[in-house]
C-alpha cells in the first residue's frame, strides 16, 4: 500500500494537540508544557488515545497514530463528558 509522505512536524503537532483537546480532554494551558520536565500531559493523553484505539502505546505521534487521527469520525469525545 502506498507509504504516507513525510509529515511536516509542525502540522502534525497541531493536529495532535487539537485532536487530543477535542476528543481526550487535553487542557491546553498555553504554558510551554511541551518542554517542561517530568510527565507531559500531551504524552499522557496521547498514550490514552493510543490505548483506546489499540495502537502501540508510545506516547509519541508516530505514523500509525497520525493516520488514526486523520480518519473521519464522530465529533463526540472518546473519554469524559
Amino acid at each position: 500500500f502506498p507509504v504516507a509522505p513525510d509529515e511536516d512536524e509542525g502540522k502534525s503537532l497541531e493536529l495532535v494537540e487539537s485532536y487530543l483537546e477535542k476528543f481526550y480532554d487535553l487542557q491546553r494551558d498555553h504554558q510551554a508544557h511541551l518542554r517542561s520536565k517530568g510527565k507531559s500531559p500531551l504524552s499522557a493523553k496521547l498514550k490514552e488515545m493510543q490505548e483506546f484505539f489499540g495502537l502501540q502505546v508510545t506516547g509519541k505521534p508516530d505514523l500509525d497514530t497520525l493516520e488514526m487521527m486523520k480518519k473521519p469520525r464522530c465529533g463526540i469525545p472518546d473519554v469524559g463528558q
Partner: protein
Amino acid sequence: YVFTAGNPKWKRNNLTYRILNYTPKMRKADVDEAIQKALSVWSKVTPLTFQKVEDKEADIMISFAYRDHHDNSPFDGPNGQLAHAFQPGEGIGGDVHLDEEEAWTKDGRGYNLFIVIAHELGHSLGLSHSNDPGALMYPTYSYTDPNEFLLPQDDIDGIQAIYGQSSAAVQPTGPVTPQACDPHLTFDAITTLRGEIIFFKGRYMLRKHPARTKTELNFISLFWPKLPSGIQAAYEYVERDEVLLFKENKYWVLRGYDIAPGYPKPIYHLGFPKTVKRVNAAYSDETTGKTYFFVADRYWRYDENKKTMDHGYPKKIVSDFGKIGRVDAAFQKDGYVYFFHRTTQFQFDPRAKRIVRQMKSISWFNC
C-alpha cells in the same frame, strides 16, 4: 461498549423523532429511509420504538448543520468530524447533528448517511464510544454495505444493558470482531498478496506483513468497498500480480491492489460445471502454474497458462492431499501449502505429497 458518563437513559420506551431539515445531496426519500433504517438498528434489539413527528418537539431532533451552529461544538467542514449527538435528556438531549459539508450518500461513496446516523443514535440512547474496532460505536467511520449491515454484538450488549432485550421470540445476535489470538478463530479464505498474508473473516481481513510482528485488523470495505463480506476463497497468481477472490458463484480479480474492471464474473468462466455453487478454498502453485480449487470433498486443477481446467478432475481431496478434511482456506508460501480446516492447519509438502506438520490456525499471528 461504554455507557455515557452518568448512565443517562430515556425513561420511556416509546420515543419520537423529527427531521428538521434535509441535505440537498440526497433525495428526501433516501434520507428518510436512511434514518428509519438507522432507528430500526436499535429498535430491533430493544423494547424501544421510534415514531416520526412533524411540526412539534421530538425526543430526537435530527438536523444537518454548518460549522458553528450554536451548540458549542462547531463542525469543521468536509471530513474530520462528520456528526455528533447529545445524550438522552430534555431539550437538546438526544438530538443528532450532521455536518452538512460532508458528502452524504446512500452507498459506499462519500459518507453513508445510514451508518453515521446509526452511530449517532447510539449516543442519543446513552452509549459512548466503544474501543471494539468492529463496533458501530467505534469512533471512526467505516463503510459497510447497508444491505449487509448487522448490529455487532458489542453494541447489542451495550444497548440491552441500558434498555433490556427486545420482545422478539429469538433474540437477535450480531457479528463478533475477530481477535487474532483467539484459539477458536477460523477463516473464510486466505491468500498471499505481494508478500503479505491476508486472512478473510466475515467483513474483516487480518493482514500479516512479514516485517511487522503485529497483525492488522481492517474491514474488507476499507480497501475494497465494492467487495462483499464473507469471501469464501482466494488465491494469488504471482505471475500476473493478481489475486482472485471468490464468493458463491462469482469471482473478482485484484490487479495489484485494485479490483479489475468487468468483475465479478461467474466462476463457470473458469470451467466449473454448473453443479458447483461455490468454491471453499484455492491456492496456486507458483512452480507449476497450476491452481487448485477445493469444493466440498473434491478438488479441481486449473492450468493458468492454458486458462482451462485440467482433464480428469474433480478428484477426491483425500486421495492426493491426505486426511485434511474439508478445506476452509489454503495458501502457498515458500513451497509449502497450508490447508486450514476449522482451527487446525496442515502444512503440506507438494513435492513429498504428504502432510509434514499440523498447527493451530492462528500460528501466523505471533500469539
